């Protein structure tokens, strides 16, 4: 996935920056062939990007040519120097084994997302993602919400099956029909990490010492074919309230980033806020039958009203580093484990987002596995051994 690291002025500027990031082309994970073990980094498209495969071929240990399967020749570049073209840019670095003539790197480039709506005064955005093959129409959006006197500034998140210009945010086709997940932000500077492909965007936002994570788009590695499950849309945030029980008043501090309750949790370690209802859960996924299912990792419910998240649901807090001191990574998998196998499903993997042990770990660490760099992030304010995930940065 393409990624961007920066600092936004506040929660509104963060929305604008994410919009600008999404309106560029994005890349999928690079595929390396040959003996050189350097890496390609900083891959990002532009507003002019098209769906194509970018191929880098080395002509020496330090020189390479770049071509797109649609664009054709994009020029030449040098290891260690940023390569920039009107459709893509990146930097290639040398590894311990030099690049060799004929070594190659192939990267899928996807077109920019489309902005369907911008309501500037309220900072409401709706985007359409093209998919990783430019064959999808994936609709997601954010709607900022705040109470200045209560000092909370949030993004309300949602996902849709289409777009209606005349409909309100929550009235878009197929929208989550309740409050849905949110992320808790603030009106001060926010360090951020954006990750995007053609089918989803992931955000990490640091608010004080709390890490907010967000996911909008399709599940990246579904276990079912597109024909069986064409639209596994995920909306993941860090805050959720169940309308089936009690939604706090606007002045309540529960809406704030400093909330330390169970309703404030990273979607990948979502909690069943009030025990039994999908609408109080930070991870929602549009199931095959169109129901916005909640997925949680606590043990509060066994009555089939929500799905579960492996491995966190089954316990991860005693998982330590490997015996050689490296970190194992485990896929994060939403599943329905209903009673007596009725309605069971394992939906797939989040992809490029893995569970990592918290032993000797901390947010913003980088776990390196071969050529892969993974950003370590904690579950909001939690720092226990089982409270971390890692997001791949390339």
């Amino acid at each position, binding site marked *: 996935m393409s990624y961007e690291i920066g600092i936004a002025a506040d929660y509104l500027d963060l929305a604008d920056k994410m919009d600008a990031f999404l309106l560029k082309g994005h890349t999928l994970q690079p595929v390396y062939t040959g003996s050189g073990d350097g890496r390609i980094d900083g891959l990002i498209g532009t507003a002019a990007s098209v769906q194509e495969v970018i191929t880098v071929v080395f002509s020496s240990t330090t020189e390479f040519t770049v071509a797109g399967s649609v664009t054709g020749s994009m020029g030449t570049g040098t290891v260690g120097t940023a390569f920039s073209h009107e459709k893509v840019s990146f930097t290639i670095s040398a590894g311990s084994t030099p690049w060799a003539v004929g070594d190659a790197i192939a990267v899928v480039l996807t077109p920019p997302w489309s902005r369907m709506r911008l309501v500037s005064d309220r900072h409401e955005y709706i985007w359409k993602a093209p998919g990783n093959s430019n064959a999808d129409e994936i609709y997601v959006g954010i709607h900022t919400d705040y109470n200045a006197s209560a000092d909370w500034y949030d993004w309300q998140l949602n996902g849709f099956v289409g777009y209606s210009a005349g409909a309100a945010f929550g009235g878009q086709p197929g929208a989550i029909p309740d409050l849905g997940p949110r992320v808790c932000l603030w009106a001060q500077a926010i360090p951020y990490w954006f990750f995007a492909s053609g089918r989803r965007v992931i955000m990490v936002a640091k608010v004080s010492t709390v890490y907010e994570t967000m996911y909008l788009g399709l599940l990246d590695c579904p276990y079912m*074919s597109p024909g069986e499950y064409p639209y596994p849309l995920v909306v993941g945030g860090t805050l959720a309230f169940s309308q089936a029980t009690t939604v706090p008043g606007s002045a309540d501090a529960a809406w704030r980033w400093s909330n330390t309750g169970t309703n404030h949790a990273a979607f990948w370690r979502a909690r069943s806020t009030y025990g039994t209802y999908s609408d109080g859960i930070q991870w929602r996924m549009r199931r095959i039958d169109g129901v916005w299912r909640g997925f949680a990792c606590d043990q509060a419910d066994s009555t089939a009203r929500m799905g579960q998240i492996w491995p966190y649901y*089954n316990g991860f807090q005693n998982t330590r580093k490997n015996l050689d001191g490296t970190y*194992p990574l*485990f896929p994060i998998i939403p*599943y329905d484990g209903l009673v007596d*196998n*009725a309605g*069971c499903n394992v939906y797939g993997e989040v992809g490029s987002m893995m569970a990592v042990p918290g032993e000797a770990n901390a947010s913003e660490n980088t776990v390196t596995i071969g050529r892969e760099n993974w950003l370590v992030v904690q579950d909001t304010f939690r720092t226990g051994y089982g409270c971390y995930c890692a997001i791949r940065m390339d």
Partner: protein
Amino acid sequence: MAYETGSSSGVVDLLQKLATWLATNGWTINYSGSHGNGWRLHVSSGAMHVHLKACVNEGAPFNLNHSRDIPFYGFCLYAGSGWSGSSAEWYAHPGGPAAKGTSTTCGAAVRMTSGAIPSYHFFDDGDGNIFIAMERSAGSFRWMSWGFLSSAGVLPGTNAGQYFSGSESWYYQNLSLDEPPFSVSWDAKVFIRADVDSYTGKWLCLGDFYGETDRAAYSSVTNDTGGNIAGWNFNSNAAADYLPGEPSGIARYYHGCHPDNLYFQKAQTSVQSLRPGFLPFHLWAARDSSGYSLLGTVPSVYYSNAVGNGYAAGEILQIESDSYVLFPHCAVKKVA
């Protein structure tokens, strides 16, 4: 990379067939000959030495006498680091696991019957990992395997990552368990070599109740027998009814247990397409202080509940260019 399937007249015949097949696939046959009522086979490839015995109404050939050493039909095996010659006792070759509190070699067992074996399946993944599925009776399979794990990082120690397994322990070989391979059981049936903190130069084993070594290992797949074994009710969801020493807080999936436990394994076959999922067998080691570290995964063998959910034992499932043979509780990659 090889695969063979067929039927066998009995445990001795099967071990002889295995010897022939292993030799064909590059293994050195150090010895293959009669032993007691049965047959013994000693094979090696690189650092892996495997010692097998087909038992014909006789006790386990380990030098570990105990009250449950009851004559049976089946197999015993252990892996080690060398071969001491045909004159050495079956159990006396170097580098095998030692039974808890002793220096005496122990290993795994497989309980079969006195009759014919309806089907067998030999798998070699081409990297020295051997998996053997044997149909004990119609639809009920038992397992033997050995090789090297796909390790999590670099495992410390000599021959680290080496593993071998059976379906039962040397101690309880008369107890026939219809369980997944590489699953946590109260019966020590899977042995793994790795240095873990202060525990060095020895074997870990899955299962820490009967037949164990001095340090337990664990699996991501926890046993379910579908009923009671000597008071352990695996159909209960009470925490006290879980296996003794079973760890919590590691990434795992449950094979069975109480329906109210929403564990991963129950859900792995899609109701949408009936297509089964394949899950890796993660193997874990308990650390000296606390917690567990991943040792690695078993190559080419996956947990699957396909059989019984739309698929039959022995059926071959094609996934793109790969094919897998399905068994109760597992699927094995078929490479030829």
